[in-house]
């Protein structure tokens, strides 16, 4: 159980994170092409905006902001699960190659269906999910050794190697796309948040609404899995089953997120670390904070990228990597 001091820390951190998220939201609406000042924003939110203001907020900005927030949450929670299960602080769906698997399926998809077709929107996350799950299965099987289980170092090495292969395959296929599809693919791989319509919010929302609370519900299982294997068995957790179930949740969250937001690494790595350093390692405390930090990171990265190069923007994935890779290096040096 958490004592009063810890509970207070969690409350303070959550409050601070939500305030920061709101601040970035205001900045995001107020900057770049067709922006709203904070007072215009307030007027529009309470329902008294001009048609132009309504259009900018509800059709241009809000969907994209929601996608960034949801995808950031999904990636952060996915990273947290993977880090706890593999007991490896350097795990992340991007580094482990799951994004690469989803990416390959995305390119396969756009080779057969064009970007514009309407079914595209709902089916694409499922394709990405299939790719992500298959990749995760291969990584798991490849790094599993009888008697030793899944050794974290091997898991990361296998993931890095497999990501390189899948990336090669994706690149091979993508050179055969026509100009328009190719440019979509290049931007997807670079992590541009392309889903900027309400439909994408709707297609991502169920995954997040279902799986993030589920993960939080499983906090205690994650707490025990993070300990030594014998301890988990001792307290009566069915280790094998819970682990596989949670890995599937992590993969589903990552795949659904990257399907709509593009291949984004490092959000899943950084957010849990920052959250843990703020509120400690108990999953009940740090999972919600990690989800908020993921949302903050991705929304901030998307806003920065959008402002740097108006109106097409630098993909959020590139901005996140430029911030995230040095952070990863810092972790590596410190560990």
């Amino acid at each position: 159980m958490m004592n009063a001091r810890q509970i207070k820390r969690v409350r303070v951190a959550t409050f601070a994170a939500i305030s920061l998220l709101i601040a970035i939201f205001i900045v995001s609406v107020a900057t770049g092409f067709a922006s709203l000042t904070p007072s215009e924003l307030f007027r529009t939110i309470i329902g008294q905006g001009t048609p132009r203001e309504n259009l900018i907020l509800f059709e241009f900005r809000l969907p994209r902001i929601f996608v960034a927030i949801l995808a950031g949450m999904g990636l952060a929670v996915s990273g947290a699960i993977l880090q706890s299960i593999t007991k490896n602080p350097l795990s992340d769906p991007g580094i482990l190659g799951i994004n690469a698997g989803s990416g390959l399926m995305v390119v396969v998809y756009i080779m057969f269906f064009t970007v514009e077709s309407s079914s595209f929107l709902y089916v694409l996350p499922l394709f990405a999910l299939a790719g992500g799950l298959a990749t995760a299965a291969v990584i798991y099987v490849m790094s599993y050794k009888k008697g030793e289980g899944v050794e974290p170092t091997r898991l990361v090495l296998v993931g890095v190697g497999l990501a390189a292969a899948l990336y090669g395959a994706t690149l091979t296929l993508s050179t055969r796309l026509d100009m328009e599809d190719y440019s979509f693919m290049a931007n997807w791989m670079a992590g541009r948040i392309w889903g900027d319509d309400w439909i994408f919010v709707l297609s991502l929302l169920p995954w997040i609404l279902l799986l993030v609370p589920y993960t939080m519900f499983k906090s205690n299982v994650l707490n025990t899995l993070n300990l030594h294997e014998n301890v988990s068995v001792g307290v009566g957790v069915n280790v094998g089953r819970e682990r596989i179930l949670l890995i599937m949740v992590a993969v589903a969250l990552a795949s659904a997120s990257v399907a709509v937001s593009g291949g984004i690494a490092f959000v899943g790595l950084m957010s849990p670390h920052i959250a843990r350093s703020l509120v400690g390692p108990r999953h009940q405390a740090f999972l919600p904070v990690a989800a908020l930090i993921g949302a903050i990171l991705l929304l901030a990265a998307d806003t920065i990228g959008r402002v740097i190069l108006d109106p097409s923007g630098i993909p959020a994935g590139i901005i996140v990597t430029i911030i995230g890779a040095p952070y990863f290096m810092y972790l590596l040096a410190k560990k």
Partner: protein
Amino acid sequence: MFKTKIKLIKDNKVYSRPAVGSAILLMGFALLLLSIGLAISVGAAKINFLTVWNSILNYDPTREADRIIVSLRLPRELGAAIVGAGFAVSGAIMQGMTRNPLADPGLLGLNAGASLALACVFAFNTGANYLTVMVISFIGAGIGAAMVFGLGSMSRGGLTPIRITLAGAAVSALLSSLGEGIALYFKLSQDLAFWTAGGVSGTNWEQLKIIVPVVIVGIAVAVMFSRQLTILSFGEEVAKGLGQRTLLTKCILMTVVLILAGAAVSLVGAIAFVGLMVPHIVRFLVGTDYRWIIPCSAIFGSVLMVLADTFARTVNAPYETPVGAVVAMIGVPFFLYLARKGGRKLS
């Protein structure tokens, strides 16, 4: 002193198979000529071996076959061969130097650094000649390597293979993201993409005139220092105990690595895994003596690249499959095997 030397060498067991090594060099060379011949004769315009032979010996610009062979296919295959040798030798040196079985210019940030540098060249100075491009690739490769090794050595516990590999992954992600950002900003993503995926299709004689001597000199220096490299591969303490000036040796070898990898990347783009696989195969065949490993790696790397390029060109004709992807698809199972075999030992 002398006794300790003997003991050090005995403890570390150099085993060397000169007979196998010479056989490989000879057969490898024959195989290389054969595969180049094969590579030239297959493709959109079918040309038989005899014509190839003829057109190289007495080139007649009025015959179409001769023009195809001499101005398109021959430089391409020579480019593939020289690049394969460059990657393989730089991988062999890195593996020996770092005692890291997973070392490879692609995994350690050199390729990504060179790619970033190239993106900058394309973006800021489109009229650059090939020599400039190559020099800038060296610099980029150097920056990438410096970052990986600096990061690896900053951490407590030193440069374990897993640490270096992870550092390489992070540095590669950072540098290629920067490169991608530049490419998107200046709208040269598509030009760069095919190039990054690796292709020798555009190689011409002008480029070969610059790159061939550079790579040959690099390999020659590597061969000259291969004895020192063998000793270094036992570990730094051993090498120091045997009286080697390890810092100097390392600097020279690292320079060779940068030149070879930089030159190769400047011609074909970032191709991972040639530098990883070839030295392992060669070590398996000829033993742990780098005096044999280096020349044999050069030959093997050439053959592998020529065959991979031929495969890439013909498997899906008329589309060109990027050769880098072909190599990655062969290389990854190999990498997985290594990671599986050594996963625990490496940490």
